C-alpha cells in the first residue's frame, strides 16, 4: 500500500507522549471531529443500551417527573435475563433464519445483477450513458417513495402487475398476501433499490483494472471465462470486499422496505430482526430494556460477521 511510505516515515526519537503527539497530532486532529461526535451520538446510546439491557426498565418503570406527575424509578438489575429470553424465545431462531435468507438473497442478487449490468455497460456501444442513467434511476428515488410505489404496483386487486398477468391470461398472484410471495416481493423491491449502487461500484472497479492485463491474457489465448475468472474477479476484489460487507450490513438492517411494504406481514412472515426489534421497542408500553437487548444482539451478530469477514480478507492480503 502506498500509505506505508508515509506511515513508516522516520521521526526523530523523542520521549513518550510528546513524541507520539508531535508525530500524530494532525492525524488525530483530522479524525477528532468525527470520533467525538460519533462517541457522543452513538457511544452514549451504546453504553446506556448495554446498561439498560441488563435491567427490566420500561417506559412505566423508568423514573421521571412530568409536570404534576412524579413517577419513581422502579426498575431493577436482572443480569442476562433479557438475553436469555430473546435466545430462548420461539421467535428468535425463525426470525434469524429468515433474516439470513433475506440478507444472503438480496446481497447475492445485488452483486450478481450489479456485476452483470456493469460488465455489459463496460464496453463500447451506442446509448451507453443513456442506459446508465436509466439503470441508476431507482437509486435517485427515496426509499420510502419506492416502497410506496411497489405496494401500489403489487396490490393483489388493482395493482398493475396482476393486471398485466391477467391480461396475458395468467391468474393474478397474491404478491403481498401469501407468505411465500410476500417474501419474494420484499426481496424484489429491495433488489430493485440496491442494484444501481452495486452496478456503479462494480463499474468503477472494472474501469480500474489495467487494460494491459486483458491484452496479455488474449495474447496467451485465454478464453473469455478464464479472463473473467482470473483477471476481472481478482481485479474487482478491492471494490467488492467493501461493498459486499457494507451491503450485508445495510440489508441486514434494512428497515424501510419491509416496514413500508408489508409491515412484517402477512402473519409475521416477512419480519426480519430489526423490524421485530422495532415493534418490541415501540409497541404499547415501550420496553427499553428488551429493545436494548435486541439491539445488542443484532449489533453482536453484525460485529461477529464483520470480524470473520475482515479476517478472511486479511488472509488474502487485504490491509487492516
Amino acid at each position, binding site marked *: 500500500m502506498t500509505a506505508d511510505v508515509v506511515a513508516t516515515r522516520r521521526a526523530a526519537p523523542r520521549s513518550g507522549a510528546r513524541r507520539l503527539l508531535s508525530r500524530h497530532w494532525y492525524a488525530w486532529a483530522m479524525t477528532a471531529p*468525527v470520533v467525538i461526535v460519533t462517541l457522543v451520538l452513538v457511544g452514549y446510546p451504546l453504553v446506556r443500551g448495554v446498561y439498560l439491557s441488563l435491567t427490566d426498565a420500561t417506559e412505566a418503570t423508568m423514573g421521571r417527573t412530568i409536570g404534576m406527575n412524579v413517577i419513581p424509578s422502579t426498575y431493577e438489575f436482572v443480569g442476562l435475563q433479557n438475553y436469555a429470553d430473546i435466545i430462548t424465545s420461539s421467535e428468535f431462531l425463525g426470525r434469524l433464519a429468515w433474516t439470513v435468507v433475506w440478507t444472503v438473497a438480496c446481497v447475492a442478487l445485488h452483486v450478481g445483477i450489479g456485476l452483470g449490468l456493469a460488465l455489459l455497460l463496460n464496453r463500447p456501444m451506442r446509448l451507453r450513458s443513456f442506459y446508465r442513467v436509466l439503470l441508476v434511476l431507482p437509486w435517485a428515488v427515496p426509499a420510502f417513495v419506492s416502497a410506496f410505489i411497489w405496494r401500489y404496483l403489487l396490490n393483489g386487486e388493482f395493482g398493475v402487475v396482476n393486471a398485466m398477468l391477467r391480461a396475458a391470461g395468467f391468474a393474478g398472484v397474491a404478491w403481498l398476501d401469501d407468505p411465500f410471495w410476500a417474501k419474494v416481493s420484499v426481496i424484489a423491491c429491495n433488489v430493485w433499490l440496491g442494484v444501481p449502487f452495486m452496478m456503479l461500484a462494480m463499474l468503477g472497479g472494472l474501469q480500474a483494472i489495467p487494460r494491459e492485463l486483458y491484452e496479455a491474457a488474449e495474447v496467451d489465448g485465454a478464453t473469455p471465462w478464464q479472463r473473467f475468472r482470473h483477471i476481472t474477479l481478482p481485479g474487482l476484489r478491492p471494490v467488492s470486499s467493501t*461493498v459486499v460487507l457494507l451491503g450485508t450490513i445495510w440489508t441486514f438492517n434494512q428497515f424501510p422496505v419491509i416496514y413500508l411494504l408489508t409491515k412484517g406481514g402477512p402473519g409475521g412472515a416477512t419480519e426480519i430482526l430489526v423490524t421485530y426489534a422495532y415493534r418490541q421497542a415501540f409497541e404499547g408500553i415501550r420496553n427499553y430494556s428488551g429493545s436494548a437487548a435486541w439491539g445488542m444482539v443484532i449489533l453482536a451478530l453484525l460485529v461477529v460477521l464483520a470480524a470473520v469477514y475482515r479476517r478472511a480478507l486479511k488472509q488474502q492480503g487485504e490491509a487492516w
Partner: protein
Amino acid sequence: MSRAAPTGAWSRDRRSPGRSIALHLTLIAASIVSVFPVAWLVLTSLKPRTVIETASVAPIDHPTLANYTQVLGETRFLTWAANSVIVSLITAVLGVLLAATTGYAVSRFRFPGFRSVMWMLLITQMFPVAILIVPIYNLMAGLGLINQFPSLVIAYLTSTVPFCAWMMKGYFDTVPVTIDEAGRVDGLTPFGTFWRLILPLAKPGLAVAAFYSFLTAWAEVAYAKAFMTGDDKYTLAVGLDQFVGQHKAEWGLLTASSVLIAIPAAVVFLLVQRHLVTGLTAGATKA
C-alpha cells in the same frame, strides 16, 4: 456521458450483430424494469382521484394536473421542500468535509487508534436506527435542539459520515503519495497538502460523498418524524404523511408529491453522475 473511450478491456474487438442485439435487448429489458415503477408513479399522479381509487389500470385515464396544483397550492409543500433542501445541503456540505478529513487521515497515516477508528466507522453503520431514536432524541432535547434543523443534520451525519469516510479512504488510496511528498517538500503542512493538493484531485470522490449524503438526508423519515414537532419545520418525507389519514390515503396528492420529491434527487444525481463511477472506485487502482 463521461468516458467516450471505455478503459474496459477486451471489448475493442468487434461484436457480431447477433451479440450486439442480445446486448441491447438485455439492457433494454433491465432499463424497463428499472424505470417502470417510477414511470407508473408519474402516470398515476396525472390521474384524478376518482380514477386512482378504482380498479382501473389503464396507463392514462382522464389526465389532469389537479393533483400537482393542489399539492403546490393548498398544502405547505413548498415550505417542506425548502426545509428539506436546507437540511440536505447542510448535511451534504458538512458530511463531505468531515468525511474527507477523516478519510484522508485513515488513508495516509498509521497512527495509534487507527484500527479503532476503522472499526468505529464500521460499527456505527451497524446500529439499527430504531434503537437509537429515543436516546438521541433525549440528547437533542437536553441540548434544546428539538424542532431545530441542527438536530436533524447531526443525526444524519452519524449515518452518512462513516460510509463517506470509508469511501473517501478508498479514493485517497488511489491518489499517489508522491503528491503529498511534493507538497511537503514545498513546505506545506499536512493540512495544507490536504486542502490545496489532494482535495482538488479528489473531486469525483467528493461528488459521490455529497450525493450520498444529500440523498440520505433527503429521504430520511424516522428521525425527521420524531424531531420535527412543528409543521412549519417538517421535511418533505414527514409532510407527505399528512396525506395519509387515519382511515384513508390521498393517493393523488401522495403520488404527485412523490414525483416532486424524486425530481430534485434525480437532478442532483444527473449533476454528479459523471463522477459517480470514478468516485466509487474505492481504492481499486494501485497508483
